[in-house]
């Protein structure tokens, strides 16, 4: 009866996506839980409900089952704490790749973790022990999702009819309504706008052609998004760029929605760790609507484009600068908007606060929210090409875990730590380039962090930055070593790179560190070459770590920032030398050594990988970055008086032989 380690599903039910007369009888449920006892009980209860049950005790297996047969399941129920992959990561990946409703469950009933479920897009969260009553109505999530998607489709479906006005409408709706998971805010906001569209809802139809977002497709998508710039990435244009016959704007729109959420989560997740004020996510969402003119254009653009709460951006920036929230100071000038990813990230600074995280996450998500199962070699490709950023994300994710929720991961159990591995499993820090960007730090950090955490794809134990150390850093100290190998940088980096090649502002970084893995960024990118930079990595890690830890968050912060900028330079060069996302991996490591955090320098190195990441991808980043970085570091120095950090970083660079390009 038990199918441990073996999942089989019988897709005998018809009506994939449709509603049969006997609905919900025959609802195809995929249950993922590595505890055999719970798995058996759940299966039993679901069978009593007359659902079709497929058991799985490994997230990886669940993902492959889903990928092989995307239309073979109606809903997924997954545990939160799993060894090979964090449940939230799986949640995000499924949301991005298959767009199926996912219910989370756990014996963990902490508010934070339940909130995490919300922000990551779970349609429900069940506390163990679970009773059959809780399962009887899960079909409502399937129906609801289809309804929303249908609505979405209808809205944009008018394109064929040549409805320009509809386009506008649907685009609006697309942004907000397509992704059911976690975007309650959007839906709510959009409700008013979509009123007329709503009326067209036809819940009874529930038929909606599903697009299978394969790895290639997702890659194309990300490339298109990056090319357009996150703020300009509207479904119509993305569709045009992608030029995929048969793909509709609705498809793109809903995918974009998810992608954005994914990125946002990545940045936000990092903040949420060990129960630390996980307000980040909520904050983000909460502030979503209140766009303040933080850094002015960037934020707004970003917010608008990626639906990132302007506030969070502002906060991040503010935080970065002077730890003052909502003070748009030092906008990350370095932002390389030009980058493919042009994430507004630059604005996001690590800033204290969760908000920043969120922002970062958003950014990052954009980049690497792409949960594609990219092969390692893909990652390699990404690494080099400008587009690689996007692909990197994909790759990273692809690695196995699509660190969709890198951030989450980070905060989650570290055991996953493979995020990086994922991406790098084949190559080890692939993303470094992206991670190298200090600015991105916010984003990267979150992304990176997420990556680390998320990368649990069981590849290797890359680094579980997220190791939930109850202490400040969520990253598991032990796992730092692992990070190096993981593609940490990659996955998350994508989002980050856009931020800014520069390092993040110290403030931002520190705050990030506090949170869950967000900070991690620096660690992994920086060391594009794990081997080479190993020492560097560690240092950075410590730096980062200490941030969380506490006490010197201040100094850490500055360190981080400096590090980031420095790293950026370095990262850039390192990545170049390595040509691999190594930086990323390296970055990962440092970040997580929560316990060790004491070395400021480390923080810096972290930033590097980020830069590298970006640098690599953006190509031009290199030259541009460097100057920026120095600028930033200068700023930092002024603010934090971290001259030593800078020099330390620079020294590292030289030693590493990376020398800014």
């Amino acid at each position: 009866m038990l199918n441990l380690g073996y999942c089989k599903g019988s897709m005998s039910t018809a009506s994939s996506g449709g509603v049969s007369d006997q609905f919900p009888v025959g609802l195809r449920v995929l249950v993922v839980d590595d505890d055999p006892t719970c798995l058996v009980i759940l299966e039993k209860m679901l069978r009593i409900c007359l659902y079709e049950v497929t058991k799985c005790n490994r997230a990886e297996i669940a993902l492959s089952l889903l990928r092989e047969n995307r239309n073979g399941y109606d809903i997924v129920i997954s545990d939160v704490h799993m060894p090979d992959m964090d449940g939230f990561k799986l949640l995000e990946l499924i949301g991005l790749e298959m767009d199926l409703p996912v219910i989370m469950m756990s014996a963990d009933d902490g508010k934070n973790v339940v909130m995490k479920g919300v922000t990551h897009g779970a349609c429900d969260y069940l506390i163990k022990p679970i009773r059959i009553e809780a399962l009887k109505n899960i079909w409502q999530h399937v129906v609801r999702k289809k309804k929303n998607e249908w609505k979405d489709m209808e809205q944009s479906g008018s394109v064929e009819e040549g409805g320009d006005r509809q386009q506008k409408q649907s685009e609006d709706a697309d942004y907000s309504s397509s992704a059911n998971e976690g975007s309650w805010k959007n839906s709510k906001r959009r409700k008013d706008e979509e009123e007329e569209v709503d009326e067209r809802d036809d819940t009874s139809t529930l038929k909606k052609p599903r697009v299978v977002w394969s790895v290639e497709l997702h890659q194309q998508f990300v490339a298109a998004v990056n090319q357009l710039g996150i703020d300009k990435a509207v479904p119509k244009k993305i569709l045009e760029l992608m030029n995929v016959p048969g793909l509709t704007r609705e498809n793109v729109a809903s995918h974009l929605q998810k992608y954005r959420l994914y990125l946002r989560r990545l940045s936000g997740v990092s903040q949420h760790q060990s129960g630390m004020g996980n307000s980040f996510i909520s904050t983000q969402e909460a502030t979503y609507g209140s766009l303040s003119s933080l850094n002015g254009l960037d934020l707004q653009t970003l917010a608008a484009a990626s639906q990132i709460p302007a506030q969070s951006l502002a906060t991040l920036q503010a935080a970065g600068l002077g730890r003052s929230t909502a003070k748009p100071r030092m906008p990350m000038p370095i932002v390389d908007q030009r980058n493919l990813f042009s994430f507004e990230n630059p604005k996001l600074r690590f800033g204290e606060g969760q908000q920043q995280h969120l922002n970062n996450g958003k950014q990052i998500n954009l980049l690497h929210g792409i949960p594609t199962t990219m092969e390692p070699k893909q990652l390699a490709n990404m690494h080099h090409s400008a587009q690689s950023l996007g692909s990197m994300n994909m790759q990273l994710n692809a690695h196995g875990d699509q660190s969709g929720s890198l951030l989450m991961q980070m905060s989650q159990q570290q055991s996953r730590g493979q995020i990086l591995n994922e991406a790098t499993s084949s190559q080890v820090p692939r993303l470094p380039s992206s991670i190298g960007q200090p600015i991105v730090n916010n984003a990267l950090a979150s992304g990176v962090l997420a990556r680390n955490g998320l990368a649990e794809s069981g590849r290797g134990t890359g680094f579980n930055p997220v190791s939930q150390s109850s202490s400040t850093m969520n990253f598991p100290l032990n796992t730092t070593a692992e990070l190096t190998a993981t593609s940490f940088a990659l996955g998350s980096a994508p989002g980050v790179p856009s931020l800014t090649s520069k390092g993040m502002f110290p403030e931002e970084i520190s705050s990030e560190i506090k949170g869950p893995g967000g900070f991690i960024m620096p660690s992994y990118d920086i060391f594009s070459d794990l081997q080479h930079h190993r020492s560097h990595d560690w240092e950075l890690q410590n730096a980062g770590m200490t941030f969380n830890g506490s006490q010197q968050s201040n100094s850490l912060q500055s360190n981080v920032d400096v590090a980031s900028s420095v790293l950026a330079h370095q990262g850039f060069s390192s990545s170049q030398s390595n040509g691999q996302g190594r930086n990323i991996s390296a970055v990962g490591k440092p970040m997580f050594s929560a316990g060790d955090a004491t070395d400021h320098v480390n923080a810096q190195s972290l930033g590097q990988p980020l830069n590298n990441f970006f640098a690599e991808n953006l190509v031009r980043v290199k030259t541009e970055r460097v100057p920026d970085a120095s600028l930033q570091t200068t700023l930092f120095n002024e603010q934090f008086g971290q001259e030593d950090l800078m020099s330390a970083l620079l020294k590292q660079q030289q030693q590493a032989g990376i020398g800014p390009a």
Partner: protein
Amino acid sequence: MANTPLHQQLSIMKQSFFDEGLLDHEQVSYLETLENEDDPDFIENLFTMFLRDSSRYIDSIEKALEATPVDYSVMERMLYQLKGSSASIGASKINGETNTLRKVFHDGDIESAKASLQKLKEEHANFKEKLVIYVRMLKEAKPSEY
């Protein structure tokens, strides 16, 4: 409805589990409603699995706690695994001790966590000893029922 001495013994033993707070009456009764003639070994299998997995979880927790530095990720995961599975089968004392350990651990006091772990191990050993007997009796009682 068999009422052999074996069954009577089973009843008594089960009741003592409830009385001693080792098993939660409500949860176990609930699980029994899920069992049916198509799957008569349901409860027995659950208990067997729990015995095996809970030992594994506790070992992992111990290792994680003894490690330097403490392996937080493993701890978290194992704590929740144990909490989830013990709650699911109604092993209340184990669930309670796991909860205590979780709280202490989250407070950051490793030494107290270790002490709490010892208590958990004791409870677990006690529970296991009794449950093993119970499961054996369940097995023996089965054939005669059919």
